[in-house]
């Protein structure tokens, strides 16, 4: 074969073009498959194995061996020279002469072949890369799209267990902080609460809260709330008493009786004593603190007798008590989690004028009533009134109750509480018929006329 011969050169060109076309075809097909697989792997890594990102992108280099394999594949099934000559013969319309001359060289007949270069060029098939690119468009979009899928972030934070118990402990600690900020706790009580809460916190880290632990959590929470409420009430009471005394001294408003004045003065002194003991005057002005220090003799606080001096002290006290009360109110709101209202008695927010409208009695756990509450109030099923319940219990009136001009004060009785509110918290209350007492409720005898009531009460609607 003479390589310089134009016919041979064109046949070789035709053959090379065929081979290139086949190579492109195989490459496009195999690359399309590879891109689909590559995209799927990238997608899988991004969604399931994020630690392998972006190392998985190195798999893209496998496209090179894929192309090499496609080239080898196209070489294995390559066209023969006979095939190429036949195709070119057809394209030129040579009637078999080109095929013949490709097999039997004869210069006499080669002149009969097309001599024009353009005719031969027309016979060479054209490679259109766009045709092969069509194969790759969709797989390429898939692979690139897989690369843009957001990486799934692995949760590196340790898994917290018993989050509910921890939160409860944290809430208790925050409540205690609030109580310390407003200085309503005595040192002994503060240490006791602190110790109990820290103990509870430690136990919560190890084990989830049990029923008994939840009882303790509720008891502590209630205890601190009650302490805060009582402090707020006392502050409000002292503030009001200070205001009344100040107005009376200034001759503004209705005059107070001497007994009333003494009573109010005692209230103020008692409240101030407690506040001083708890350190609630740390935030007061230096002048006020000095004045109070001066008035305290032998541990007893006494208001000055001089009217001007008394007036000035009462005004300063009222201002300070106002601030303290506001701080206490703010602390109460925080401790109640913003779920309850301002009323320290019922917890509702619509008790206007500081007067409790009686919400919540019977609706709150442990408050008794006729609803289907927890039912842990004492039951008296013998039909007789309890001697203790024949009298009204002494209750602390809500702030401003006495200031309502429509009300007429018949008398105020000051009674030392017989029950510590903190200890009388619902959770902590001893139950008469708890299982430990040996007198279980179910073991008691009910009168026939009460049985239907009890039965109806526990019936499921």
């Amino acid at each position: 074969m003479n390589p310089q011969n134009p016919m041979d050169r064109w046949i070789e060109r035709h053959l090379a073009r065929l081979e290139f076309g086949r190579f492109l075809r195989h490459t496009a097909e195999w690359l399309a498959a590879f891109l689909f697989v590559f995209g799927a792997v990238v997608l899988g890594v991004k969604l399931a194995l994020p630690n392998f990102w972006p190392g998985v992108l190195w798999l893209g280099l496998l496209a090179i061996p894929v192309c090499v394999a496609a080239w080898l594949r196209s070489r294995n099934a390559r066209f023969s020279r006979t095939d190429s000559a036949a195709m070119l013969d057809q394209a030129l319309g040579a009637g078999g002469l080109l095929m013949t001359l490709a097999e039997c060289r004869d210069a006499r007949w080669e002149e009969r072949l097309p001599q024009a270069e353009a005719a031969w060029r027309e016979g060479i098939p054209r490679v259109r890369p766009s045709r092969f690119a069509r194969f790759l468009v969709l797989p390429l979009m898939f692979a690139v799209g897989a690369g843009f899928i957001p990486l799934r972030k692995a949760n590196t934070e340790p898994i917290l267990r018993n989050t509910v118990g921890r939160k409860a402990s944290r809430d208790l600690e925050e409540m205690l902080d609030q109580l310390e900020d407003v200085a309503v706790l005595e040192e002994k009580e503060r240490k006791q609460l602190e110790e109990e809460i820290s103990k509870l916190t430690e136990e919560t880290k190890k084990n989830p809260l049990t029923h008994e632990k939840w009882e303790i959590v509720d008891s502590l929470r209630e205890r601190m709330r009650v302490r805060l409420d009582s402090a707020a009430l006392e502050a409000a009471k002292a503030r009001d008493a200070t205001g009344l005394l100040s107005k009376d001294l200034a001759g503004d408003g209705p005059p107070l009786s001497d007994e009333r004045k003494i009573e109010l003065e005692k209230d103020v002194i008692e409240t101030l004593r407690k506040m001083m003991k708890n350190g609630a005057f740390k935030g007061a002005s230096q002048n006020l603190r000095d004045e109070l220090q001066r008035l305290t003799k032998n541990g007893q606080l006494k208001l000055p007798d001089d009217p001007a001096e008394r007036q000035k002290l009462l005004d300063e006290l009222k201002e300070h008590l106002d601030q303290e009360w506001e701080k206490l109110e703010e602390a109460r709101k925080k401790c109640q989690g913003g779920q309850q209202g301002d009323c320290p008695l019922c917890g509702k927010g619509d008790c206007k004028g500081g007067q409790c409208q009686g919400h919540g009695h019977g609706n709150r756990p442990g408050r008794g009533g006729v609803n289907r509450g927890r039912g842990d109030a004492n039951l008296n099923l013998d039909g007789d009134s309890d001697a203790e319940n024949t009298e009204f219990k002494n209750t602390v009136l809500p702030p401003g109750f006495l200031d309502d001009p429509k009300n007429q004060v018949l008398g105020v009785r000051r009674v030392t509480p017989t029950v510590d509110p903190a200890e009388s918290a619902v959770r902590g209350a001893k139950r008469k018929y708890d299982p430990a007492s040996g007198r279980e409720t179910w073991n008691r005898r009910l009168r026939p006329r009460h049985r239907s009531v009890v039965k109806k009460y526990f019936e499921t609607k």
Partner: protein
Amino acid sequence: MPPRKSTREKRVTDSVPAEVEPATDVWDDGPVEGLLSPAEVDEARQTLERFLDGLGTAILGQQELLELVVICVLSRGHMLLEGLPGLGKTELVKALSSLLGLDFRRVQFTPDLLPSDIVGSPILEDRDGSRSLVFHKGPIFANLLLADEINRATPKTQSALLEAMQERHVTVMGESHPLPLPFFVLATQNPIELEGTYPLPEAQLDRFTFKIDVGGVSAETLQEIITTRRHGQSPKLKETIDAAALNRLFDLTDRVHLPEAVSNYIARLVTATHPERDGSPQDVGRFVKFGASPRAAIALATTARAAALLAGKPNAGFDEVRRVAHSVLAHRLILDYAARLEGWTPAKMVDRLLETVSEVAREVPADLQA
């Protein structure tokens, strides 16, 4: 008195006509070196044009038919002409014999024709006081045998031609008698008269290189025939090609190159006629009962070479194969009854084959095509 010879020892004398040229080795399949030169092709072309002109003088308006006849003669094949009476089949053969200057015999096939009436028979003769069986050659011992209305003879008589057509000799009483070369059988048959006819068996049909359907002529041609031939007599034809020139044409035909791709096409075309082969067209699988034989492939190649020489080419191409495909393949395809019901004919099946089988074994990939 000389001893009497036994029947087996009887001498059979071959009475070959003196005017018949001795057989030349036209079947030499040895390597053919070199392509035909343009001069050789031109020489053959001129001779064949004269030949065609002569045939055209006798047979008017049938150029395609005449070219097929010439192709068949160049390929040294036998030809079966099928057509209605009066279309000039016999006239064509007579004109052929006149132009070629070959020994021509005509046998009118009838139902009572016997094989010995064709091939000849030994006859007891008394020569110089001794009797011997002398073989008297039949009409088959000619260069050109016209078997007129061949389907009227019985299969027994028809089969008398089998050996002669394939082997170019006949065997009588164990003695082979070579036929003069070239030897052509040109048969005719009428497709419409079925009563009293015997359709040619497949083996007999397969030996005919060409089966050509002789069709009618146009009105212009008929007018010319009416004008020039008052009593239907053909013009006197002179010998155009003598034996030497014919042998030369045979030689040139053999030297026509058949490219590898073309031979591959012929092989795939013939293979595709077999319904059981993979890659055969769906219609072949449905309607063809038996496909073409290897003899058909050989005939395709030979006639394609002849067609190429007639076209003035040193090589056969795909066009030549397609040109002779109908004449070579159609009578070799045996269709089943379903094909008849569906209206398929062998010619239609060949058309389908030519449509389906690609010329080049591996075509240009679709993505590279324009």
